[in-house]
């Protein structure tokens, strides 16, 4: 009886140890790798995953559903894209956006808001008409929602999901995607309108270099000469144009997936979209800062369309003298001439 128990335990131990030995490659090969009667090993003779990737650059199979894209099993670029999307992008986007926000906070703490040096004249100068302001705010409202819902792709599952849970995060992400896809169109329309409205005033001129050399007078407190838009505003305008077009082009390609691109092209569209979005969000944070906290009177210009003549003369003296007074400013010219 005792010998029987010992034999049973021994056999059981052998059985339990077999998988462990197999994991270490010390056991016999599984049946699939055993030699056939002809002396061949079919498993060893079959093509490997790495051979297929090396020779065909992708692994494809045969499927029965009409969506042929589902036949693609593996492509090397997919691994690079996954590394970018899951590892690099959240870090790059986070660092860029946080750095810009911290830099602006430090700048505000050190420099404070840029104020008008002289008392307000009480004379209003038309700076933006209603079409310009409506276009600006439509584009701005669209962009803010696009930015927040777009950042949900980067950070949502990392930051928001642990806070609000799977149900709320799922519902939010669904609506965020819908908002992102639909508000893309007013943003693109606004982009085209802004180019039509402001491209002429954003062409480079001889005052830009002076403005850039003095860094806009942000540090020194001076007011370098500028036409309707200074070099800083022009940089923001062209950044919006360049990155806006990049976002629009790649966004349309992603709104209609695989319409013009294959799987690798779709991944490249997302590279460009994500980088452009990150940079434009950081730039627009700076734009929002200077348009609200950073400069006295800037927000009023886009809210009411009018600025005080003193503000205009300090920040855009060339515009006041050349452009506004010559072409549009009969009201301001008349009002700024002292009564006799």
């Amino acid at each position, binding site marked *: 009886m005792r010998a029987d128990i010992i034999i049973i335990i021994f056999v059981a131990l052998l059985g339990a140890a077999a998988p462990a030995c197999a994991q270490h490659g010390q056991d016999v090969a599984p049946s699939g790798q055993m030699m056939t009667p002809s002396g061949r090993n079919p498993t060893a003779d079959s093509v490997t995953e790495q051979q297929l990737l090396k020779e065909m650059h992708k692994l494809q199979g045969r499927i*029965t*559903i*009409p*969506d042929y894209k589902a036949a693609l099993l593996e492509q090397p670029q997919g691994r690079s894209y996954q590394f970018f999307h899951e590892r690099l992008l959240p870090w790059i986007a986070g660092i860029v956006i946080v750095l810009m926000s911290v830099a602006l906070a430090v700048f505000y703490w050190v420099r404070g808001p840029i104020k008008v040096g002289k008392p307000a004249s009480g004379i209003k100068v038309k700076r933006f008409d*209603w079409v310009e*302001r*409506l*276009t*600006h*705010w*439509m*584009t*701005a*409202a*669209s962009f803010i*929602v696009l930015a927040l819902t777009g950042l949900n792709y980067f950070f949502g599952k990392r930051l928001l999901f642990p806070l609000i849970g799977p149900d709320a995060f799922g519902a939010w992400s669904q609506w965020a995607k*819908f*908002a992102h*896809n*639909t*508000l*893309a*169109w*007013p*943003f693109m*329309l*606004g982009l085209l309108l802004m180019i039509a409205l402001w491209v002429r005033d954003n062409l480079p001129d001889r005052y830009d270099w002076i403005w850039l050399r003095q860094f806009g007078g942000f540090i020194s407190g001076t007011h370098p000469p500028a036409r309707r838009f200074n070099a800083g505003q022009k940089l923001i305008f062209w950044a919006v144009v360049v990155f806006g077009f990049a976002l629009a082009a790649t966004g349309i390609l992603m709104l209609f997936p695989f319409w013009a691109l294959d799987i690798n092209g779709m991944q490249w569209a997302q590279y460009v979209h994500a980088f452009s979005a990150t940079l434009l969000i950081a730039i627009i944070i700076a734009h929002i800062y200077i348009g609200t906290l950073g400069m006295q009177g800037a927000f009023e210009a886009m*809210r009411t*369309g009018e600025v005080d003549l003193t503000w205009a003369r300090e920040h855009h003296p060339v515009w006041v003298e050349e452009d506004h007074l010559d072409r549009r400013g009969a009201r301001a010219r008349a009002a700024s001439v002292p009564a006799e």
Partner: protein
Amino acid sequence: MRVILAGIVLALVFAALAGIGYSAAQRPVYEAQPMPSVRVGDPGSNLVGQNWSGHPKLQGPEKPRGADPARGAT
């Protein structure tokens, strides 16, 4: 402030139009990618077979008429 609200409303209007456009342009997957065959999850119960009458199969045994327990046996 009115122009800011007007800008937001205008953005929503264009977004709504885009949403309508998507709905008009997109087709359900069973229309966009029809297949000659179907997939079945459970061949034991959801195949109709040759004698399918077109009516859904009754679930459970049919109750005999007049066997309403609320009224009692008649």
